[in-house]
């Protein structure tokens, strides 16, 4: 009991002494100040004018990609979009019927992407679309007989299949013209398949693997459809008019293949809706000189056994000249420019997508500064991660490299939330249009003009 009492007495003593030793934050701030620790880091801005790229280059990833969700066919902005359907047949009755029939016909039914065509953002005067579309239809047909053959088709992984499409070598191909009519949001585009394909299939008896490719390199626009993974998947119909019967087959996957039809190989053109990018590289010396003039210190930092942490970049933005007349767009909406930088990761250069900090007052008055096809004559992109990394490691003579590409069309260019959100009235406010604009934007002239880098620099140097 005495021990318990002693422990409680001890606790009481300590609690009372804790009251005596109370903390006063104002006093503590004074102590921090005496130790040379400020209440906040000093921050200054620095503008580096007249930067011109050391190099600039566009890249287009033309590797086939899956189109199981949304599919695109046609040509826009000097990019052609092909579709490939992967279909497996295992139906001896069908092949027997096909062999007997001399009037069988086949066609693909593609369901247009109604949320896109029915959107208020899609130009209303564009519908109905009635035109003749010149198509190239090519195919590869592999004969099989057993269920294991069909199963083996499904066993081919998507990546392997996509990879095989890069070396597409058709068994046969036919050029044809089909009449297109897209008049309402639930339109079906019917594409007749050549009789040569059915003739080839008549030679089969039980199973086959059909890879069917549609190309429309002469098209004046792109057409958007639901993909094989949606509820409105495309269908291959084979009709037997005399027998008044038909068979329906579904592609179990689809691929999208783009190819660049730009005639100017030196132009710095970005396209919407495809995986392309513009990579711009800047020499480090002008930035180092500006920093050196600003701080009066040596840049790049060569002292000590390490890299530069005397200051850090809180925010950095590059401003380019912009001339929208050098581009075309389908929808007439502003389009965001997405930006990334090349930063170091364990000794390797990796591309890191940049964060975007909102300058709300500027956005409210003039709109987001990172858009093309919008009022104004400049494009401002934030490259904070890149500049932070670049200044930190500049001692090795590295360059500053950034990447940009076209993002989604912007429905509310002056909305500072910059993401779709629910309003106080519980409505969804869409800031972005959720379909890419197959636009084309030429940055060639912009990259020839000097750009400006603005840095917000946090500094931990002491007073000199």
């Amino acid at each position, binding site marked *: 009991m*005495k*021990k*318990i009492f002693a*422990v409680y007495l*001890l*606790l009481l003593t*300590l609690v009372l*002494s*804790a009251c*005596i*030793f*109370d*903390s*006063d*934050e104002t*006093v*503590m*701030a*004074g*102590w*921090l100040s*005496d*130790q*040379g*620790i*400020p*209440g*906040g*880091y*000093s*921050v*200054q*801005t620095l503008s580096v004018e007249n930067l011109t790229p050391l190099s600039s280059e566009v890249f287009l990833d033309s590797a086939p990609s899956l189109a199981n969700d949304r599919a695109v066919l046609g040509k826009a902005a000097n990019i052609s979009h092909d579709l490939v359907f992967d279909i497996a047949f295992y139906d001896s009755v069908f092949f027997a019927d096909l062999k007997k029939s001399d009037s069988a016909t086949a066609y693909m039914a593609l369901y247009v992407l109604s949320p896109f065509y029915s959107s208020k953002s899609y130009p209303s005067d564009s519908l109905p679309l009635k035109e003749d579309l010149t198509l190239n239809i090519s195919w590869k047909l592999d004969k099989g007989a057993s269920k294991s053959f069909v199963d083996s088709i499904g066993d081919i992984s998507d990546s392997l299949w996509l990879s095989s499409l890069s070396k597409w070598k058709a068994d046969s191909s036919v050029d044809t013209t089909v009449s297109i009519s897209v008049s309402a949001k639930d339109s079906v585009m019917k594409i007749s398949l050549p009789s040569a394909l059915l003739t080839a299939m008549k030679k089969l008896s039980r199973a086959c693997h059909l890879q069917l490719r549609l190309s429309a390199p002469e098209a004046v626009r792109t057409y958007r459809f639901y993909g094989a993974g949606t509820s409105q998947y495309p269908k291959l119909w084979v009709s037997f008019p005399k027998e008044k019967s038909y068979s329906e087959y579904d592609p179990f996957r689809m691929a999208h293949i783009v190819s660049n039809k730009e005639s100017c190989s030196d132009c710095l053109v970005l396209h919407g809706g495809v995986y392309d990018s513009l990579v711009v590289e800047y020499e480090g010396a002008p930035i180092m000189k500006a920093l050196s003039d600003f701080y009066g210190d040596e840049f790049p*930092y060569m002292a*000590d*056994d*390490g*890299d*530069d*942490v005397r*200051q*850090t970049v*809180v*925010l950095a933005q590059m401003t380019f000249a912009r001339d929208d007349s050098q581009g075309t767009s389908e929808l007439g909406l502003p389009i965001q420019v997405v930006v990334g930088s090349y930063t*170091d*990761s364990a000794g390797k250069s990796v591309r890191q997508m940049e964060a975007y900090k*909102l*300058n*709300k*007052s*500027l956005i409210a008055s003039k709109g987001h500064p990172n858009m093309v096809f919008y009022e104004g004559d400049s494009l401002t992109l934030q490259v904070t991660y890149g500049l*932070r*990394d670049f200044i*930190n490691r500049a001692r090795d003579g590295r360059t500053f490299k950034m990447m940009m590409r076209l993002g989604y069309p912007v429905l509310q260019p002056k909305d500072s939330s910059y993401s779709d959100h629910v309003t106080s009235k519980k409505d969804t406010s869409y800031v972005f249009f959720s379909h890419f604009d197959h636009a084309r934007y030429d940055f060639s002239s912009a990259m020839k003009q000097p750009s400006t880098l603005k840095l*917000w620099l*946090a500094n*931990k*140097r*002491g*007073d000199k």
Partner: protein
Amino acid sequence: MKKIILVLFALAVCSFASVIGLDALGEEQVAGGMASTAGRGYAGGAKTGDAEGLSVLNPARNAFDTKVVFNVNFLIEMVSLENHGDNFGVNNITMPSFNLSFPMGGFGAMGLSLWQSYASNLNEEVSNGKNSLETTIEYQSSVYEIVPSYTFRLPVIRNFSVGASAHVVMGNSMRKISMGPNTEGLSSEDTWAVSNAEISDYVDGTWEIKNHPAYYTAALQYRGHQSSFYFSYTTPHTLLNELDYNFRMSELDTLAPTKRSREIDVPAMLAAGMNFRFMKRNNVMFDIAARGWDKDIENIGGSFNMESVTETQKDMLLALGFQRDGSPMFYDPYLDRVTYRLGGWYKTWYVKDVYELGGSLGAGFPLGRKGTTLDLSFQGGKRFADSGRGWDEIFLGFRIGLMGVGNWGQTR
């Protein structure tokens, strides 16, 4: 025991100690920070006996022990910083040491300690009227030593023993100062870019001894019928603190740090002490330890207007203590079995113009009949920082030590 742990746990939420020398080495845990020694004002390095345990300054002491002793210590310290009438308090809990000594009869005695010899500990948040972000300052630096020791009584003159210990240094150091921007230098149209942009000045590193695995202490002990003496010498050594400096927005930043090593030349230390026993169980004791710092200590520094060096002075401890040993007889009244301690000390810190004056009161409460003791000590005093940027400190410390005595390896 449960209640003691609960008390410790409750106090662990508040957290400590001196902020003098934070950027240099921090606060020294004198004499291993043992609760029993602290209770008598850090005096008593020369006092022998099974209830004393291992001494990091006098490795020759436990040559006279007959029992295995395990000892663990806790420290709770509250400090009030004062300057021109202003004051604020910080507090902390730490475990400065634990020790094990193992007598081997005619083969001498071995010991092993883990000692937090220097520590910088601080974790505080300060509101700043200039922006919405608080300034957070955090120090977590510990120079830990693993100290194996060996001692034996001399063959002919059995009242004398010699001992030696090796101090293997290790530990980590970390300093983090997080703050928001001071936008006074920005135009109003530029402030959006730094809103809520907290940045941390972050330094971390490790401690070791340069070019050597350890530094060493050698000691000579005399145990007389009434008087005991010891003398010890600790070798000079160079502490190496390899540091990475960063200035970052978050822990996910992949910025490469600036690497820097600081070397701290720790001079040799001489220590001596005596203990005089009178009226059977009463002891008076006096200890002195001195280390002649002759070079400035390079600070972690590196940021803002923090000082780059800490100027040093001769570091000296003068300690005077009294102890009334508890009765070893279990059937004696409990209060007669309790050990009572009293002491005071004067210490000049290694930091220039910093002096400490303290007093303490302690007691050792026997638990059960097997020799386990709970040592408690209260300490109070003042540190005077007469120059530089240091503030005076009034401190109140509470130490708890648990001492277990056993007969492992002994035959009757």
